[in-house]
């Protein structure tokens, strides 16, 4: 391991995690408030800075300055550990997302693992611990019930989520997110195979299972990130604020930010898998091979394309939140176990048959 690689990795980690993802988290909180306001014919926060853009900074300062209260009846160690355990895995998953093609001859991905989606699922499955612990360590009934509910929801939908990307992996024959994106740049995005090799009867037929996967994956992501219409862990009438009832100040903020970070990473993964990642439509400016040099400004455009897609996806998240009423808990479980699980399995079989027929 030479120093060049370590320094490059360190710079990428710092830039992508602290200068890209975290500000994006702050901005999505602002966007959530402005968009929800616009949907409800309101104005939303518009005082701090231009268009209220610095509202996130004000919120952060407010959270830091509030009293950090630890109730006497909690289990202190786990009570303090839980917020960190929700935030850290969400940020760890950044590691395998390809943010762009190449810049300065460096791949724009922190760790070019050959098990990309598996890594994301492995780390994302650790976020459950934060919620379990928060519920248990708070040592009071509402957080506990909220934690139990949230945990069972997340475990259930993790299965659907994992199964839903199997058809995609079967079609691309690869688990490396960088190569999957490169393939999509050449031959059409998974959902929109409109150019390259995708523009053929085979491409259109295979888009059918991919569409089913996309629906299941996106819906499961809503459930995984505990957002409406699946925000059952928090509900005022039944569970007060769910697992973070006893939390205040920055510890509460960590839960809050962890949720948004998970949303951003989820959007990033969905964009990478289904919507071509950093690639532009119709193969414009696509590098010829995976190892080809990319001109500097092409690399910049690819970065921009990725973030544009992620932002559109986050807006979709927000609009859905303010559109749909929530599910009842038994409906949620039925949807997960009875419908999505079976459909995902059938989808895998369908893809296998299609691949065998079209070989």
């Amino acid at each position: 391991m030479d120093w060049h690689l370590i320094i490059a990795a360190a710079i990428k980690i710092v830039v992508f995690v602290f200068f890209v993802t975290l500000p994006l988290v702050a901005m999505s909180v602002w966007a959530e408030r402005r968009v929800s306001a616009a949907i409800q014919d309101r104005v939303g926060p518009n005082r701090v800075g231009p268009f209220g853009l610095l509202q996130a900074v004000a919120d952060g300062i407010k959270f830091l300055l509030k009293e950090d209260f630890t109730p006497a009846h909690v289990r202190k160690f786990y009570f303090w550990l839980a917020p960190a355990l929700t935030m850290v895995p969400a940020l760890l998953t950044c590691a395998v997302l390809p943010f762009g093609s190449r810049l300065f001859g460096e791949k724009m991905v922190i760790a070019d693992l050959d098990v990309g989606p598996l890594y994301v699922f492995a780390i994302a499955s650790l976020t459950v611990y934060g919620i379990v612990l928060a519920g248990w360590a708070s040592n009071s009934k509402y957080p506990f019930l909220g934690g139990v509910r949230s945990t069972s929801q997340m475990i259930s939908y993790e299965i659907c989520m994992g199964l839903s990307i199997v058809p995609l992996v079967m079609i691309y024959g690869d688990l490396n997110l960088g190569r999957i994106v490169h393939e999509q740049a050449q031959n059409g995005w998974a959902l929109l195979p409109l150019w390259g090799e995708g523009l053929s009867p085979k491409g259109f037929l295979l888009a059918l299972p991919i569409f089913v996967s996309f629906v299941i994956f996106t819906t499961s992501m809503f459930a995984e990130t505990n957002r409406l219409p699946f925000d059952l862990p928090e509900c005022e009438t039944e569970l007060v604020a769910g697992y973070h009832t006893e939390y205040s100040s920055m510890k509460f903020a960590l839960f809050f930010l962890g949720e948004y970070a998970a949303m951003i990473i989820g959007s990033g993964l969905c964009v990478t898998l289904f919507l071509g990642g950093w690639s532009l439509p119709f193969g414009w400016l696509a590098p010829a091979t995976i190892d080809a040099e990319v001109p500097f400004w092409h690399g910049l455009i690819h970065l921009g394309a990725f973030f544009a897609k992620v932002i559109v996806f986050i807006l979709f998240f927000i609009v859905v939140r303010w559109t749909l009423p929530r599910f009842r808990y038994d409906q949620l479980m039925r949807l997960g176990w009875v419908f999505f699980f079976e459909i995902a399995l059938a989808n895998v079989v369908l893809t296998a048959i299609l691949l065998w027929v079209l070989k």
Partner: protein
Amino acid sequence: MAIIVQRPKLKWWEQLYLPSLFIGMKVTLGHFIATLTRKSKVTMQYPEEKWDANLPDHYRGAPALVTDEHGRERCVACQLCEFICPPRAITIKPEEIPSDDKWAKVEKRPRAFEIDMIRCIYCGLCEEVCPEQAIYLRKDYAITGTSRAEMVHDKERLYEIGGVRTGLVNKWNELK
């Protein structure tokens, strides 16, 4: 009596849930775009935009004392408002009007008249009970201060808000 609610029978495409998602998104996005393009503007940006001109005449804002057209303070310190005030926001210290005063026949006037605006609930009972039409609820609503003492309106401040009211009570005038 139990009412049995007939659930609507859904078509197969309605049961898919996705169409209703798009119908819902059409509504929300419609509002979103309408707000962005300023077509539906409901909210007023308060400190910059105010609605003061449209306040109704019966608006109950800050209570204030008024003088009449001769510059006489109308309050005769009868203390009815002090007694009726539900949150006990009003404190009156009466004094006798010296006999050489022009309005000596009124006999009493408030030496100090204080309304604690932290306590005031803007109910308007003081205005209703006043036999001299001396206290009115005006249209001032932005009553702010940086300390508790600042929020207590003394007599001077109350006359400043109230101003002059003519007519209505003429019994103390020369030519009755």
